[in-house]
């Protein structure tokens, strides 16, 4: 363990902006991708169910 305090950990030896920026943007991009994927799936399912209903329903 090379950190004596939480403040020292967050300061990253003066590289806080660069280290936390790198990890932060990577985490953010992954989180956004996962969110978009779940929305894409919900949208596809909704559209297909709507289509199916309008095809199979009374005309």
């Amino acid at each position: 363990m090379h950190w004596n305090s939480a403040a020292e950990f967050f300061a990253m030896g003066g590289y806080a902006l660069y280290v936390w920026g790198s990890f932060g943007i990577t985490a953010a991009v992954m989180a956004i991708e996962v969110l978009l994927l779940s929305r894409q799936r919900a949208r596809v399912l909704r559209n297909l169910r709507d289509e199916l209903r309008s095809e199979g329903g009374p005309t």
Partner: protein
Amino acid sequence: MTTRAIHWFKFASPQNFYGLAGRLWTWFAALAAALMAVGLWISFFVAPTDAQQGQGYRIIFVHVPASQMSMFIYVVMAFWAGLGLAFNTRLSGMMASALAPTGALFAFLSLITGALWGKPMWGAWWVWDARLTSELILLFLYLGFLALQSSIDDPRRADKAGAVLALVGVVNVPIIYFSVQWWNTLHQGASVSLTRAPSMASTMLWGMLIMVVAFWMYTIAVALVRVRSIILERERHTEWVKHALE
């Protein structure tokens, strides 16, 4: 032998692969989460401070996996695209389309984390170095692939056009990889190679390798989820999709 082959070809059908992907992706997602937790712990609490770069070097634990994935995904995407072009299999094109957005994101992350690393160590966010420039071209290739596919309405024709672009662009991957040897670059050479001992502390190396595997698992999970949506959309008029929705 032949029964084994038949067994595998079964999953070349979108219907069978849809089910398989649905069963597999949660395992890959769980592995990705577990490995990332271990990798992050090593990145911040186990790996020692670097003698030259202090704590700043810790960017390596996201920069290297993201960069490697951006290149690997391109090769895998080009492989599927080529397979689709050669054998006219439907699933291959869908796999290529499912991988492209994730590859583009990793290329973007590679450039961004590289800039965040370059600024404190080189004094510049960006230099027109062979490694950086060829990685930027990789991002443009991904974006070109995505734009080309979305501009063609017929999915089968979009697959073919995208496949040609993907295959031509694959020449850029060895250029990125060997750029640090072929040209005099500001970007450092590989710290890890198959032919000689790695030039870094073993805990740093392990942290990096675990993060690389974690990013692989993440990529497989998201690509499987994305290909499921693509399969549903493209096979919407088939009976099995109608049954699956009921």
